[in-house]
């Protein structure tokens, strides 16, 4: 297929644009940091984005299955899920791959066959969006699980039930002394 070849040839450029696109959803100075800091320990967000999106695109282009796409979506969405984005904002980058491809292949798209192939590829992107939705939801679910199971809930309530915790009383004279 023509598109396959094109995608392979332009892989680096497309992934680059895609990563930029995700990173530009952050404030400009943070985006600059995510983009330029190459130390994976100093910049886990930026490095994870560029690595995982690269893997993801490759998997998508080579017909990776559901598990493989999930695997590469996970690191990115795990981060997006805890960063004050709405669900739509967190996932939008997936469908943003479409305009990136269209602009990348603007001239080549005049050819009917390529255009048809691209539509088929875009269907895969849509499928990826649905998979991403699952992955993202799983991350959020995990987060809420953690919220309700914090030790405050786990232990404090148990103690309270057992009548082992003294309620806080307002300040009583005589309980205090100057030190």
């Amino acid at each position, binding site marked *: 297929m023509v598109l396959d070849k094109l995608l392979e040839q332009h892989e680096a450029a497309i992934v680059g644009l895609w990563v930029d696109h995700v990173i530009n959803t952050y404030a400009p100075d943070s985006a600059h940091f995510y983009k330029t800091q190459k130390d994976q320990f*100093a910049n886990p967000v930026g490095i994870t984005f560029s690595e995982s999106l690269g893997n993801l695109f490759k998997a998508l282009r080579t017909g990776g299955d559901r598990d493989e796409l999930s695997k590469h979506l996970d690191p990115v969405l795990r981060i997006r899920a805890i960063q004050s984005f709405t669900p739509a904002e967190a996932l939008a980058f997936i469908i943003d791959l479409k305009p990136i491809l269209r602009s990348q292949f603007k001239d080549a798209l005049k050819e009917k066959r390529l255009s048809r192939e691209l539509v088929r590829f875009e269907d895969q992107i849509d499928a990826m969006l649905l998979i991403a939705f699952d992955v993202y939801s799983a991350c959020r679910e995990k987060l809420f699980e953690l919220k309700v199971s914090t030790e405050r809930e786990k232990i404090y309530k148990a103690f309270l039930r057992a009548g082992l915790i003294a309620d806080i009383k307002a300040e009583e004279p005589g*309980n205090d002394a100057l*030190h």
Partner: protein
Amino acid sequence: MNLKYVYSFLAVLVLFLVAYVGVEGLGLDWLFGIIVPYLAVIVFVVFGTKRILGWGRSAVPFRIPTTAGQQKSLPWIQSSPIDNPSSKLGVWVRMALEVLTFRSLFRNSRIKLGSGPKISYHLEIFLWLGALAFHYAFLVAIIRHLRFFAEPVPFFVQLVQSVDSFFRFEIHYDPIQVGLPGVALSSIVLLLAVTFLLLRRLLDTKVRYISLAADYFPLFLILGIAFTGILMAYFTKVNVAAVKELATGLVTFQPTIPEGLGGVFYVHLFFVSVLLAYFPFSKLMHLGGIFMSPTRNLTTNTRAARHVNPWNYPVKIHTYEAYEDDFREKMVEAGLPVEKMPAATAAEEKE
């Protein structure tokens, strides 16, 4: 949108015009040659001292050094006497390294992991290098200028001068330049370093975001100083003897205005005066502040030697007695020792 650097640039431009027009147009040589420098020095000394005394007046209630290495604990564990200085000597060395080599900035070392298992280290070195170059070039420039104020010129000034211009550019093909000193290394370094620091502020998104007008102003001003300095030393060729006459006049309190110093000289002098007067009110006071930073200038033997807080005051606390009063019955029941046994009857009634 970001007008901060524009404001600062315009401010320096206005200062330039004020001095240039004042001298060349209005003939106010005495104002810019005598009055303004005196005022600037007075402001610098009075308000700079005030600032430092102000810091000194604030208490140091706790010893809160940032420990950057192994503490001194058990004798067989190697401690870091400089990064975690338990002795005064260690603090001195730590401070000296901070002040002279900007050690903390140098800490920005990075690990780079390639795609393979190999780990390579590299330094994010440019901020450190730029800052170091800037400060040392400035220091050398100041020392070199002492030759205008003292006769005979002190040996260390001569030494610095000769080292500095050992690395000089001489323009041999231009007959006019023959016999004159070449551009000193420090001038070039200063100009380059200031330009780097300015560009970093303007071009690095992160640093631009945090910068204030007050961060650009001194950079433009120093750029102006370096620029006018180089201009008159090597291009308009100011009369060095006349400069020396003015300078000696000022320091011996017998100010005179020699002939033929020219507008550029007065602009240079005015910029320096403005920098001096601006200094105590600005972030440039980090020159003094670095010596007073409690996270760096205190010993870390905080458990070995007691530090006294001058304003330590008594606070309300919950005493053991109040605690036992609160829980005595339950404590006794659980078999915990108490100071006062509860009256048996009272305990029974409660149950």
